[in-house]
């Protein structure tokens, strides 16, 4: 059904990105192996979104490379992305999911089946026929995650998925993400919310002004970061 070779690890080597004449991402290197949740941490404007977009292929690095272990058969991506502000098509909840599946080239029957599974998995079944844009903010983000999940990604990118949500909805999304990791999906998300990073991260990539300043196991990072900027950020004294 799906081919077995994994697209992971993802290797980012000296990736830089230039925009409007400025170097926004400066020679960032890291590897994302299969499994676990990696948090891309840093203040606003550090370049977190750009790094995720470079990884997902929405942007091309101006130097360096973003390489997958296996590029997949038939050109179908096995990584998906959820954005800060949920992008909801002007369609019903289920049509939002089936549209993404159709774009991935799946046939009608499989689309409906996977859509049903995804809506059930994320508690949106009763909302199936409602216009997606009338859902609450939390439900919209849940639908965005369900839509990405339906594509059966090995790696899921999330760009500050809870920054526009209230605490209850945030907690719900965090539980969902923990569930995805338990299911074996590798997750890489950006956040500037320290509490969230502490709750979720297995590993932290700390980004500051377009440079990767620290790449550590989460427990070690929060116990005592080595980089000056990371210490300042944890102390709430940062810096941007």
């Amino acid at each position: 059904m799906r081919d077995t070779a994994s697209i992971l690890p993802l290797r980012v080597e000296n990736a830089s990105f230039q925009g409007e004449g400025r170097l926004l991402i400066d020679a960032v290197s890291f590897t994302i192996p299969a499994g676990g949740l990696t948090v891309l941490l840093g203040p606003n404007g550090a370049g977190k979104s750009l790094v995720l977009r470079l990884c997902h292929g929405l942007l091309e690095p101006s130097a360096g490379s973003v390489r997958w272990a296996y590029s997949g058969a038939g050109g179908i991506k096995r990584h998906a992305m959820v954005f800060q502000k949920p992008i909801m098509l002007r369609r019903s909840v289920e049509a939002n999911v089936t549209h993404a599946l159709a774009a991935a080239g799946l046939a009608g029957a499989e689309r409906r089946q996977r859509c049903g599974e995804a809506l059930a998995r994320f508690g949106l079944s009763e909302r199936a026929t409602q216009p997606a844009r009338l859902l609450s903010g939390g439900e919209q983000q849940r639908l965005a995650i369900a839509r990405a999940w339906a594509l059966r990604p090995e790696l899921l990118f999330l760009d500050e998925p809870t920054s526009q949500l209230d605490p209850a909805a945030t907690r719900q999304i965090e539980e969902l993400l923990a569930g995805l990791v338990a299911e074996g999906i590798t997750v890489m998300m950006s956040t500037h919310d320290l509490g969230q990073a502490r709750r979720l991260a297995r590993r932290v990539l700390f980004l500051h002004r377009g440079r990767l300043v620290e790449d550590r196991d989460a427990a070690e990072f929060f116990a005592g970061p080595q980089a000056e900027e990371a210490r300042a950020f944890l102390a709430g004294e940062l810096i941007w």
Partner: protein
Amino acid sequence: MDFGAIFQAAFALMVGLDPTFLAIVSLSLRVTLTAVFIAALIGLPLGAALALSRFPGRPAVIVCLNAMMGLPPVVAGLVVFLLLSRSGPLGPLGLLFTPTAMIVAQVILVVPIVIALTRQIVEDLWAEYRDHLRSVGLEGLRAIPTLLWDGRFALATALLAGFGRASAEVGAVLVVGGNIAGYTRTMTTAITLETSKGDLALALGLGLVLIVLTLMINAVAFGASRVGARYAG
């Protein structure tokens, strides 16, 4: 002038379903609806493609299209007249002074409206959808069906704007159709003629139909935007 009698005669034409009157109304609708349909087939994809493409000279194309929205109908009529006249490049087709010629002229009037409004609608939608559509692999021309479908309510309003322009204009259909009784006489050309002849009852009856039509177009446009708002959230 006895306005009471004129109104009475006009209503008698409308209520009595006078055959001449009905023939004029149905020809007008046939010509304009066909023109809008063809303009939609041409204009929706082209407008969407223009929204998504980047090429040198694109701003100039957009300015020209926007300007074409205000193209005087008689000028459009004149262009089609020159093309279709006996000595013109398409003269051998023998289309001048036929309903087909009127459709062609109205297509020329409506296409710029459809392209220009579609471009704007699709460009705005693309700005909002871009990240997600690119993420699921829909880029360039592959994104067009999604964008046209999701813009359907706004696009319906664009088509109704085109319908409004075509149904109200008199210059183009008069020049290329010739206002031949029972063949190319539309509501607007008939009103022009009957008014100058002094047959105000027919002119007024047709005028009332045009006004009702305009009201209906606006009611439908309003309804479309209300339904659209439900989905747009």
